[in-house]
């Protein structure tokens, strides 16, 4: 283990540079968000927060082109609904694939894995036509319903359930007269809690962050998600950049908050997924 693995001052210096580059754009976003519009024209660029955040927020929410408040509310609704649904359905299906025997199990699992390889773009056009037929265009169900299940979620829960729930435990529950539904609720779900938390966090972040599909299907500017509000802000003809940056900062804040609170679990989830890959 010796000196080969010791971190030298040079290691720390290199990491410091990497960390600085990682954090800098986010830091600068908050700096501009808290200053007046002429901060953008200043060279050298300002690096410390100013006192204009409140005024910028007020102007942002008053901006009648961006519908920023609606965007925030919509994104909260969409991300929460999708997260609950993905975690619930993934733990159901993951349990079935990991612990129950049924005809066609392996083939169906392969189908799920295959779905993870297909790019979303391929489905955008017919999905749009489908939404037109359902008259869901410009409405939130168009964004929510196609995202309610993911192959990734099922696969992840299956992998986790395979090791976290012992067959003996299930067998014992069955001996005691539990039906499969009760086994899922009382035995499996509690054991899956750590994986469910990671899946929930990742799903929430992905959904909050999604741009492509909402951009295609929510054309009514008065009913955007928060990412679409940002687009409206940045495509606008005025260039009030401190207001735009206040918007980007607010749109990023929930993600950063989740990350600060659950960073350890998220990192664990990513690294664990890699080892199994």
């Amino acid at each position: 283990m010796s000196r080969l693995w010791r971190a030298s001052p040079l290691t720390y210096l290199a990491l410091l540079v990497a960390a600085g580059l990682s954090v800098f754009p986010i830091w600068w976003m908050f700096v501009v968000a808290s200053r007046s519009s002429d901060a953008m024209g200043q060279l050298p660029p300002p690096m410390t927060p100013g006192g204009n955040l409140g005024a910028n927020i007020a102007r942002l929410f008053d901006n009648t082109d961006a519908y920023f408040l609606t965007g925030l509310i919509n994104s909260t609704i969409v991300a929460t609904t999708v997260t609950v649904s993905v975690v619930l359905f993934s733990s159901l299906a993951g349990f079935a694939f990991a612990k129950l025997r049924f005809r066609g199990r392996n083939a169906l699992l392969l189908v799920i894995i295959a779905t993870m390889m297909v790019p979303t773009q391929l489905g955008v056009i017919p999905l749009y036509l489908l939404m037109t037929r359902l008259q869901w265009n410009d409405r939130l169900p168009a964004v929510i319903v196609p995202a309610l299940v993911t192959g990734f979620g099922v696969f992840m829960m299956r992998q986790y359930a395979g090791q976290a729930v012992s067959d003996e435990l299930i067998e014992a529950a069955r001996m005691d007269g539990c039906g499969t539904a009760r086994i899922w609720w009382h035995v499996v779900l509690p054991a899956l809690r750590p994986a469910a938390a990671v899946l929930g966090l990742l799903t929430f972040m992905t959904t909050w962050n999604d741009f492509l599909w909402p951009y295609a299907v929510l054309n009514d500017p008065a009913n955007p998600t928060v990412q679409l509000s940002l687009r409206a802000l940045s495509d606008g003809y005025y260039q009030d950049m401190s207001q735009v940056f206040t918007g980007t900062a607010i749109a990023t804040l929930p993600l950063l908050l989740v990350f600060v609170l659950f960073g350890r679990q998220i990192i664990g989830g990513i690294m664990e997924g890699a080892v199994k890959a």
Partner: protein
Amino acid sequence: MTVQLDARPPVAPKADNPHRSSGRLSRLDTRFSPYLYIAPFFLLFAVFGVYPLAYTFWVSLHDWDLLGAEHPFVGAENYTRLLADADFWHALVNTLGIFVISTVPQLLAALWLANLLNRGLRARTGWRMAVLVPNVTSTAAVAIVFGVIFGREFGMINWLLDLVGLDAIGWKSNRFASWVAISAMVDWRWTGYNALILLAAMQAIPRDLYESASIDGANRTRQFWSITVPLLKPTIIFCAIIATIGGLQLFTEPRLFHSGTNPIRGGPMRESQTLTMYMFENAFAPHYNFGYGSAVAWLLFALIAIVAAVNVLLLRRLGGGNRPEKKAAR
């Protein structure tokens, strides 16, 4: 990805359970309830996943205008027209260009970063969080911020260039420069994520391999290229494929990098219009030509499959397979 498809023998609750009032009901339960549990996924996926997929192909064989009352069948015409379309090839070159100049540095930097993180560090979690934080930000927000950082007049990068006596670069109006700017966004977002995945695999390498190598006189660099890299091959391939799928689908970053009158074109001369943007331009505003857009989508899919396959072939050769000693130390 190795998928473990074998399983333990079934848990068989024979009907000899005295506590069970109706053994038949429980047999029905074990037999059919699994289908009940996976049904939500397959039902939703059939409607919103499989059906659109097949339907895209069907639409691509038609002259399908959103406003048109009829959608006549035209066979492969959309595809042949597409292959003769200069804007399509232009977008294809943009996509591949951005993909190459983002993926290669990204994976190399991730490898280096993972190697740094694989030491005995103080505040381990803190460093990991710091390099991962770009990955958890809003893509749309970051694209807008980078759009300003790479601005022509007051952008920070041009200001830095000026400090060292270089001319300002038109990051949005020069084709190659706009590729670099967009690649910078992609790398900023994904390098830390890949580093963590590589780090996890690095930690699984037995350390006595390094011990004996250093007794044999191999220095750290030599060890890195002769032990670490070859043993990480499967994980590197995994990262490369994920980067390929993501890189060729790039949309949010280049779309929001541009603003103004026609941002879906990726600049006035289509400097950084990717294939997905080209699909959007044709399928939705301003053209609403769904048949043509669907053809673009299918060719994009084919491209992803081809590039992923090439990736695997190239990376298989990385590190010389089982004979790492043949690889020259760098």
